[in-house]
C-alpha cells in the first residue's frame, strides 16, 4: 500500500456553504462480508485532494445525489491517505444504492465532521481495542494511525469479534495485525463453522479471558450497542475507570453539524460533540437515552 | 348537552368499572386548559374520575387511543366515535371484550371556529357559551346573543345520521334523533358547491388548499381509521412520496389516506378540526363516505359482524365503468 502521511497538513475546514457536498470518485470496492463493502474513493477536485485532512474517529456524510445522504466514519487512517475509505453495510435505501455503484461512479462527500480519538491522551499508554462486526471501522482508522507511529504507544491489544467467520470484516488488516509482533491480536466469533479454528465466544467474554491490565491503559470500544453495553461492565471489573474507556456513539443524522437536531442526547449533539466519547461523559444518559 | 345527569352517571359508572376491575383505564374527557375546550383524560386512577365531563365541547374521537393501549378500557363515545370503534372491531384492531363503551347520546358538538365567525371575536374573548336545547347563548362583553344551535355545530354534527352510539354497553342518556333533511343538506354545502364547478377549477381548488399543508400528519394521527403501524409516506423502499411539504406530495398523501380509510371513516370530522392550517379535509372524507354509500350501500361502523368494506366484495358490485 502506497502510504502518504498527511498528519502534518494544516487542518481542513469546510468553507462556504457547508451543505454542498464535494464530488468524489469510487476507485475500488472491497467486499468485506455478504452485505458490507469498503469503498475507496478520492476527490474529483485535485486541489481538494492536496488540502484535505481528517483525524481518526471523524465521520463524513456520504451521498448519492438524488437518493440521499448518511453519516459514515472514515475508516482509513490519516497516516495512509492515497485515498479515503468508508465501510458501508446494506441496511437501507441509500446504502443499498451505494452497493449498486461500481468503480468510477461519483458520490457526494461532505466533512470531515465531529471530534476525533484523543491521540494526545492515548500517547504513552497501553491500548486495548475492543471491536465487534462493522464496529471495527472507526477503530481501524485509529489502529493504523497508532501502528504507523508504533514507538509513541505502549502495548496494543486488539480484541475483535463477529457473529460468524463470514461476518469478520477487514480480514486483510486482521492478518497484518496478527503478523505484527508488537500487537496482540485476538479474533473471535460467536459461533464458528467447520473450517473455523480460532476462538469462539462473545467479545465481552473473550475480553475477560484475555484480561488486559488496566494500569496505564485505555480501552477503545466500538461495536453494536448490545456489545458495548456488556463490554463496559467487564472493563470495570478489569479495573478500568470510566475515563479509561472510550467509545463512539451512533445516531441518526442529517446535517452532521449540530443543527438538524436528531442526534441530540441530553445537551450533546453526537455529530458536533462526538462521535467519540469517554464512558465518563455518557454514563449518565446511556441507560435512559441510548 | 350540558347534562349534569349524564355527567353524574358517567362518573359513577366509570368509578364502578375501575373499582370492580372491569377495566384498566377510563378514556374520557376533562376540562381543557383553555376556555371552552376539553381534553382527553386517560387514567387508571379512581381519584381522577371526578374530573370527567360531558358538555357540547367534547370534540375528540377518543377511539384513536384504543389501538395503542394495552389492557381493557372504558371509553366515552359519541355516535360517530362509537362507529369508529365498530370499524376497529371489524378490522380486528380492538377486541370487543377489551372495551366497555360508555355511550353519550350526542346532540352535536359546538364548532368554536363557527362561533368565532358568528360573533367576530376569538374564543378567548368570549365570556360564555351556553347551550339550551336547540338554542345557544353567546355572551361577549356582557352582550348576550342567542342563535339557533345549528348555526354553530360542526358540519358533520349538523348532518349527523346517528347521534346515538351504534354500539354501547352503558348508555348515559336518552336517545337522540338524527338530523333533519334540511340540516343534512346544509351540512353538505361546501361539497355541493365544489361539485358544481368544472373539474379544472376543482383541481385548482385542491391544489391551492394543499399548497399550505405542512405535513404535520395531525389529520392522520388523530384519525382512528388510520391505524397502520407504518404509514405509506414513511416507506423508503420504494419511496412513494418525499416527506417534503410540496403540494403535489401533500395532495397525493391526502388522496391515498382517503382511499385507505374508505369504508372506515365515520365522518367524525377530526381530521379537518385538527388541521392547523384549516384545509377542508372533511370535504374529501365526507364525499368518500357518500360515494361508498351510494355505490355499495355501505356505511362505516354500522355492523361489527360485517367484513371491512375494502376487504369484501359482492358479485353484483358496480362495473359499468369497466370496459
Amino acid at each position, binding site marked *: 500500500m502506497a502510504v502518504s502521511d498527511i498528519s502534518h497538513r494544516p487542518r481542513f475546514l469546510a468553507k462556504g456553504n457547508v451543505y454542498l457536498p464535494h464530488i468524489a470518485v469510487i476507485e475500488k470496492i472491497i467486499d468485506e462480508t455478504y452485505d458490507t463493502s469498503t469503498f475507496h474513493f478520492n476527490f474529483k477536485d485535485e486541489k481538494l485532494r492536496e488540502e484535505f485532512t481528517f483525524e481518526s474517529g471523524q465521520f463524513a456524510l456520504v451521498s448519492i*445525489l438524488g437518493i440521499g*445522504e448518511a453519516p459514515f466514519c472514515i475508516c482509513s487512517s490519516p497516516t495512509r491517505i492515497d485515498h479515503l475509505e468508508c465501510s458501508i453495510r446494506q441496511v437501507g435505501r441509500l446504502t443499498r444504492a451505494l452497493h449498486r455503484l461500481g468503480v468510477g461512479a461519483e458520490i457526494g462527500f461532505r466533512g470531515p465532521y465531529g471530534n476525533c480519538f484523543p491521540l494526545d491522551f492515548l500517547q504513552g499508554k497501553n491500548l486495548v481495542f475492543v471491536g465487534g462486526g462493522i464496529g471495527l471501522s472507526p477503530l481501524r482508522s485509529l489502529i493504523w494511525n497508532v501502528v504507523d507511529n508504533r514507538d509513541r504507544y505502549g502495548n496494543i491489544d486488539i480484541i475483535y469479534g463477529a457473529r460468524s467467520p463470514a461476518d469478520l470484516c477487514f480480514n486483510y488488516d486482521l492478518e497484518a495485525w496478527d503478523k505484527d509482533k508488537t500487537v496482540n491480536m485476538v479474533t473471535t466469533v460467536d459461533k464458528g463453522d467447520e473450517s473455523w479454528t480460532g476462538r469462539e465466544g462473545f467479545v465481552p467474554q473473550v475480553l475477560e479471558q484475555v484480561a488486559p491490565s488496566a494500569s496505564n491503559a485505555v480501552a477503545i470500544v466500538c461495536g453494536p450497542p448490545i456489545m458495548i453495553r456488556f463490554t463496559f461492565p467487564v472493563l470495570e471489573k478489569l479495573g478500568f475507570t470510566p475515563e479509561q474507556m472510550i467509545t463512539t456513539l451512533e445516531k441518526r443524522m442529517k446535517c452532521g453539524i449540530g*443543527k438538524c*437536531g436528531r442526534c441530540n442526547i441530553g445537551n450533546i449533539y453526537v455529530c458536533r460533540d462526538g462521535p467519540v466519547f469517554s464512558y465518563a461523559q455518557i454514563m449518565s444518559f446511556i441507560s435512559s437515552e441510548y | 348537552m350540558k347534562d349534569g345527569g349524564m355527567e353524574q352517571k358517567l362518573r359513577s359508572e366509570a368509578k364502578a368499572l375501575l373499582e370492580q376491575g372491569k377495566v384498566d383505564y377510563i378514556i374520557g374527557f376533562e376540562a381543557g386548559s383553555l376556555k371552552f375546550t376539553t381534553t382527553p383524560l386517560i387514567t387508571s386512577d379512581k381519584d381522577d374520575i371526578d374530573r370527567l365531563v360531558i358538555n357540547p365541547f367534547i370534540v375528540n374521537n377518543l377511539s384513536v387511543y384504543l389501538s395503542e393501549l394495552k389492557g381493557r378500557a372504558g371509553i366515552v363515545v359519541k355516535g360517530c366515535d362509537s362507529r369508529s370503534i365498530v370499524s376497529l372491531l371489524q378490522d380486528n384492531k380492538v377486541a370487543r371484550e377489551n372495551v366497555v363503551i360508555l355511550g353519550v347520546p350526542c346532540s352535536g358538538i359546538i364548532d368554536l371556529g363557527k362561533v368565532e365567525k358568528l360573533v367576530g371575536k376569538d374564543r*378567548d374573548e368570549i365570556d360564555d357559551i351556553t347551550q339550551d336545547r336547540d338554542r345557544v347563548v353567546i355572551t361577549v362583553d356582557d352582550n348576550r346573543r342567542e342563535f339557533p344551535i345549528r348555526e354553530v355545530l360542526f358540519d358533520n354534527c349538523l348532518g349527523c345520521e346517528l347521534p346515538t352510539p351504534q354500539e354501547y354497553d352503558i348508555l348515559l342518556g336518552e336517545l337522540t334523533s338524527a338530523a333533519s333533511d334540511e340540516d343534512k343538506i346544509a351540512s353538505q354545502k361546501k361539497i355541493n358547491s365544489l361539485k358544481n364547478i368544472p373539474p379544472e377549477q376543482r383541481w385548482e381548488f385542491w391544489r391551492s388548499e394543499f399548497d*399550505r399543508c405542512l405535513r*404535520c400528519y395531525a389529520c392522520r394521527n388523530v384519525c382512528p381509521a388510520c391505524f397502520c403501524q407504518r404509514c405509506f409516506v414513511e416507506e423508503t423502499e420504494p419511496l412513494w412520496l418525499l416527506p417534503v411539504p410540496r403540494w403535489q406530495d401533500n395532495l397525493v398523501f391526502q388522496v391515498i389516506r382517503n382511499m385507505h380509510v374508505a369504508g372506515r371513516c365515520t365522518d367524525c370530522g377530526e381530521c379537518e378540526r*385538527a388541521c392547523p*392550517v384549516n384545509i377542508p379535509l372533511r370535504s374529501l372524507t365526507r364525499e368518500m363516505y357518500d360515494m361508498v354509500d351510494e355505490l355499495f350501500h355501505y356505511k362505516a361502523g354500522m355492523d361489527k359482524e360485517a367484513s371491512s368494506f375494502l376487504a369484501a366484495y359482492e358479485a353484483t358490485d358496480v362495473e359499468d365503468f369497466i370496459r
Partner: protein
Amino acid sequence: MKKVTDSKKISKKNIAKLLDEWRQEFTVFVPWRDEAVAKWARWDGKDTSFLDWYRNTVVPPKAIFFPPMEEMFSFQKDREGYHLELPASDEPKQLIFGIRPCDAKALAVLNMTFSDAYEDPYYLAKRNGGVLVGLGCTNPYDSCFCTSLDSSPTDSANVDLMLTDIGDDFLVEAITDKGKALMAKTSLAEAVTRADEARAKDVKETTYAKVTKKIDTEGIKEKLLSGFDNKDLWEKIAAKCITCGICTFLCPTCYCFDINDELVKNQGERFRSWDSCAFPLYTKMPMENPRVEKWRRLRQKVCHKYVFYPMNFDVIACTGCGRCIRLCPVNWDITQTLDNLSAEAQVKMEK
C-alpha cells in the same frame, strides 16, 4: 429601562404609506389571513386591515427565514459527472412588519443554532438581510405566557424597530442601527409628546397584566432532570399526545429539519424541510430506534426546550407564544406538564 425620548410616532393612517416606502427597498411581509389561516405573506401594497384583526399568526415568522421546505441546491448529471448549482437568492432583504416580541425572541434563538460552530448559509443569508419591525401586543391570547420567560407582550429586545399602539398612532422606538437608519429615512415620523409617552407606558403595563398564564421557571432545569427517568410520570404526561407535528412545526423556536433528495431523469434537487422530534422516524436508525415510545419523544421535546437548549445557549428555547397550546388537537398543554413535573420534583425532594 430604555430611553423613550428618542422615539417618534407614526399615525396609523400613514402605515400604508410607510410600508410603501419600505417596499422600494425590501420585500415587506405582513400578517395575512386568507379565508383559512393567518400566516405571513408579501404585502399587496394596499391592505392594512391586519391592524384590526391581527393577534398573532398560526404559522410563525420563522417560516420566512427557515421555510417549511427549501431547495438547498440542484444538480445535473451528464457524461462528465455531477454539476451542482445553488438556488438563486433573489430576496436578500426582507422586512417583517408587525412581528410579535415572542416571535422576534424566537428568531434570536434560531440565530444561535444556525450560527453555532458551522454557519447555516441558507438561514443566515436571509436573516442577516432581514429587518424586524416589532408590534407590541395589546390583546394577548389566554394561552400566552411570555411574561414567565423574561419577556413581555411589548418587549423590544429582539427587533430593529418597535411599535406600540397608542390609539391613533404607533409610538416607534428605533432599537438597532438598522432601525435608526429606517427612521432617519422616512418623513412620516412625527415628534412625540409627553402624553404619548405616558400612554405608551400605560399600554405596556396594562398589556403585561393581561398575560395571565404563568409558569415557574425557577429551578426548572433541576426539576425536569430530577424527573427525567420517571417513566411512569412521562407515560402519563404523554398518554393523550397523538404525536403529530403541530406543536413543533408551528413552534417559533423549533428548528429541526430533514434533508431529502429528488432525482428525475438526470436532474434533481436536494431539499430541506421541517422535521419533528414527535415523529418516530426522526431518530430511527436501520437497526434500532432510541425513541420508539411516544413518551420518550415528548420528553425530548420538553427537555430540549427547557433543559438542554439552556445548557448550550443559556436561554430557554420557548418564548411563551402559546401556539403549541392553542393549536394542539388534544389540548396538550406544556404549562401543565411543567407544573406536574415541578410538583413531582417537590414531592421527591420532601421525601
